[in-house]
């Protein structure tokens, strides 16, 4: 694995943000003193100024591993902090996460947490030592831990109930809005979505319903595949893997048809919903088209995404298939495991009927800069990435929009790029960045 300049994701312990995205869940870190606050800065504040929320930021319980625990082991210290957490913190679910120190030292965290589990407490643990993987993998580890350590088979499957696995909370700065949008789309065609993270998602009670779902829906190129496979093995729940994050009308309609068909929904219901949504989308697209077609100054000639596979692919397909733009090189930053890269590269190879894009897999901003400098830019480039990419955009006389960590030049509340409305938002934001550079 390469060295990384300009990081756009972090280590497996970034999973603390996944825990915080579950309503009334409390992470308990068995880690060094600075891990939590660094990750909070990088993933939450660095994601468009999302803050502590209910129990994040400086409220996160942590053993703050010191020399003592490194030398003599930290299991007793962990017990103290768990005991304190149960007294002090008002939560429904507790997730113990290990950092590098505890894992290198070899603390038996499963044993310690097992003592509390045997008392019937809603507590699980995940091995999220920073060196074990990325924040994407940390997210999977937390979900997997809750599923294997807490969930029981459902007495009965609930028809229409679908667990939604998609964006990684905070790692996707728009995760809150995106999950609400996916919820809205799926409810629109008649399903009962269980999105598990974010506002109104239901916390532990929603997680307990996971085994009762009719199916699991994975909307992501690769993150979460392990989760839905685990659920299939553990509870026999089938899953649909839709690898493209739906942005704009083309992809979203395709997505809803696929889901509707898989779920066995009446085609008429699905089509009726799609029709109303498309009507609104094209109504606004039509009005913007004077601008698209006759703006007398420069608009970007090629777009370049520097984003995780979910966004790089979702945005590329939207810009190609809904707005008719042309791609330059696309940079996929989330370090997908090798076995998933062919699928992702294949998607970029067939973005539209006659449109293909080259793809570079790298988490390293320095590599992105080298390739962007070497690219033969015949047009002004549009670089859709993070706050890191502003410099290279200026150097190449291009346009720039931050959509991935770090986003330090925008405030993000509930904005979403998912679905029909999400496509409109993305178009607004891209052209706001372009027009804002004029005067």
């Amino acid at each position, binding site marked *: 694995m390469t060295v990384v300049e300009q*990081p756009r994701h972090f280590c497996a312990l970034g999973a603390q943000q996944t825990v915080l995205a579950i309503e009334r869940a409390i992470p308990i870190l068995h880690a060094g003193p*600075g891990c939590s606050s660094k990750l909070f800065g990088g993933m939450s504040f660095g994601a468009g100024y999302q803050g502590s929320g209910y129990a994040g930021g400086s409220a996160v319980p942590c053993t*703050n591993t010191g020399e003592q625990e490194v030398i003599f082991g930290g299991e007793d210290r962990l017990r103290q902090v768990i005991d304190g957490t149960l007294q002090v913190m008002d939560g429904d679910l507790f997730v113990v996460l290990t950092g*590098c120190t505890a894992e290198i030292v070899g603390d038996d965290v499963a044993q310690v947490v097992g003592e509390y589990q045997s008392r019937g407490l809603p507590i699980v643990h995940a091995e999220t030592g*920073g060196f074990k993987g990325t924040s994407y993998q940390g997210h999977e580890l937390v979900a997997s831990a809750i599923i294997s350590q807490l969930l029981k088979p459902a007495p009965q499957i609930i028809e229409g109930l679908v667990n939604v696995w998609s964006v990684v909370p905070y790692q996707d700065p728009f995760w809150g809005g995106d999950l609400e949008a996916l919820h809205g789309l799926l409810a629109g065609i008649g399903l009962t979505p269980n999105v598990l993270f974010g506002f109104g998602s239901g916390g532990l009670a929603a997680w307990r319903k996971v085994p009762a779902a009719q199916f699991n829906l994975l909307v992501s190129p690769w993150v979460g595949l392990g989760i839905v496979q685990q659920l299939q093995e553990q509870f026999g729940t089938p899953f649909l893997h839709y690898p493209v994050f739906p942005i704009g009308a083309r992809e979203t309609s395709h997505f809803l048809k696929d889901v509707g068909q898989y779920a066995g929904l009446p085609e008429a219901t699905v089509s009726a919903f799609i029709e109303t949504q498309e009507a609104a989308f094209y109504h606004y697209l039509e009005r913007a088209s004077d601008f698209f077609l006759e703006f007398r100054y420069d608009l970007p000639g090629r777009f370049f995404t520097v984003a995780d596979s979910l966004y790089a692919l979702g945005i590329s397909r939207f810009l190609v298939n809904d707005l008719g733009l042309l791609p330059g090189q696309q940079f996929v930053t989330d370090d997908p495991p090798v076995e998933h890269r062919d699928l992702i590269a294949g998607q970029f190879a067939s973005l539209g009927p006659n449109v293909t894009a080259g793809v570079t897999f790298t988490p390293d901003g320095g590599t992105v800069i080298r390739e962007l400098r070497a690219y033969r830019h015949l047009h002004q480039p549009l670089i859709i990435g993070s706050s890191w990419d502003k410099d290279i955009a200026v150097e190449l006389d291009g346009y720039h929009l931050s959509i991935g960590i770090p986003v330090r030049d925008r405030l993000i509340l509930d904005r979403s790029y998912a679905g029909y409305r999400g496509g409109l938002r993305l178009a607004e934001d891209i052209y706001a960045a372009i027009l804002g550079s004029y005067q």
Partner: protein
Amino acid sequence: MKLNLDNAEVEIRERRLGAITGYCGTAGDLYRQSKSGLLKEQERPFSQCTSCSSVTAICQLSMIQDAAVVNHAPLGCAGDFCEFNFCNRTGQVKRGLRLKNANLISSNLREEEIIYGGAAKLEEAVREAKERFQPRVIFITASCASGIIGDDLQGLSELLSEELGLPVIPVFCEGFRSRVWATGFDAAFHAILSRVVKPARQKQPDLINVINFWGEDIFSDLFGKIGLKPNYVVPFTTVDQLERLSEAAATVQVCSTLGTYLAAGLEQQFGVPEVKAPPPYGISGTDAWLRELGRIVGRSPQVEQLISDARESIAPELDELRQTLKDRTVFVSAGAVHGHSIICLLRELGLHVLGGCVWHHDQWFDNRDARADSLDHLISHYGDVDFGICNKQNFELVNLLNRLRPDLFIVRHHGMAVWGGKLGIPTFLIGDEHFGLGYQGLLNYGRKIADTLSNPALVKNLAEHTRLPYTNWWLNQEPYAFLEGRRQS
């Protein structure tokens, strides 16, 4: 106390400065216990996340414009890169420097390196840093992981220095080594003092080193009045500037929690006198600070003139502000010395300070000089105050605020302010450490407080519509109940 610059590693504050992270009582009692040698660290069985030396080391090193920092760590330890990059860019704009991203790179340690060692990854990262940034100096900041697996940063740095033809300097700031994350400042300064600063070629009698973070440039004007000019360190400097820190006529600091090691090191090793005085916040502190500076550089008459002019010019508005703010209650939470400074400032403005808590406490500073004891200054000029050392423990702070319900909460550390807001307490954080400094700082703070108190709409909304993540049980305990020895069964 003589600093040992020959060692590769800085001695941690627990051992060097008698630093502790748990206490509750009063400022006066804390001071007396510190002086009597009886003060002891108090443990907390329950704790929340704090910060670490890696953050503070990177904080100081990442904004040296022509240096590079290689963080030898797993990728999560680079979580603060974007924060310091933002800080760096904001400072570049304010100071007219070239706008560009900070020169930061992570060696991205993974499982393989944890098992077999991270030397190859580190070498790659350092070579890439040279190639990409063309720096004058490369700092390698250590991490918990690199420290525990025992990568030989010292040896590797020497080999890489030779290979690349530039100083490659290890900075030992592993998070687990010290509870006091300000130790990371010392680690960064240790690296600068021992490997970057050179003996003075020519003294510059009007140049004053100002150890600070990223505050507005107020010293050009202030020092200009007495014929001096500031040399801000360390953020936004160049390596050349750091090499010549020895040429200055004196070193001042706005907060000795930050600058204790660098100021003492410059005096001991390079003969640059350190201005040993209370921090320049509030009238008496500012008077003493300026007078000591004037004495050292031989400009006492000019300083006396400056003091009387400034005091006269702020007097009318200061009186008005004191009337407006009279008897309003306030609670303060900040880094140690800056916390003392803010309390002085607030008392000067006539507010009723209900208490304060700071992240840690150094029982003495590297200069061991009583004149620079900010806690002593606070007590002797402004009286005693309820005081705790909360080590950024959110549960203690929220409990305290919930009980005290001050009219105002002033905090200085990120991730803390919102907790005042959730309780409906008008709250602010001033990131610019110069905002409250000096005579003008009193007016700045006074106006800011008056503004904050005049429209508490946001915090009222928050209090009405959010819940605290703490149990009622906890909110009904004593705030420091978890401190060892205070725990009620």
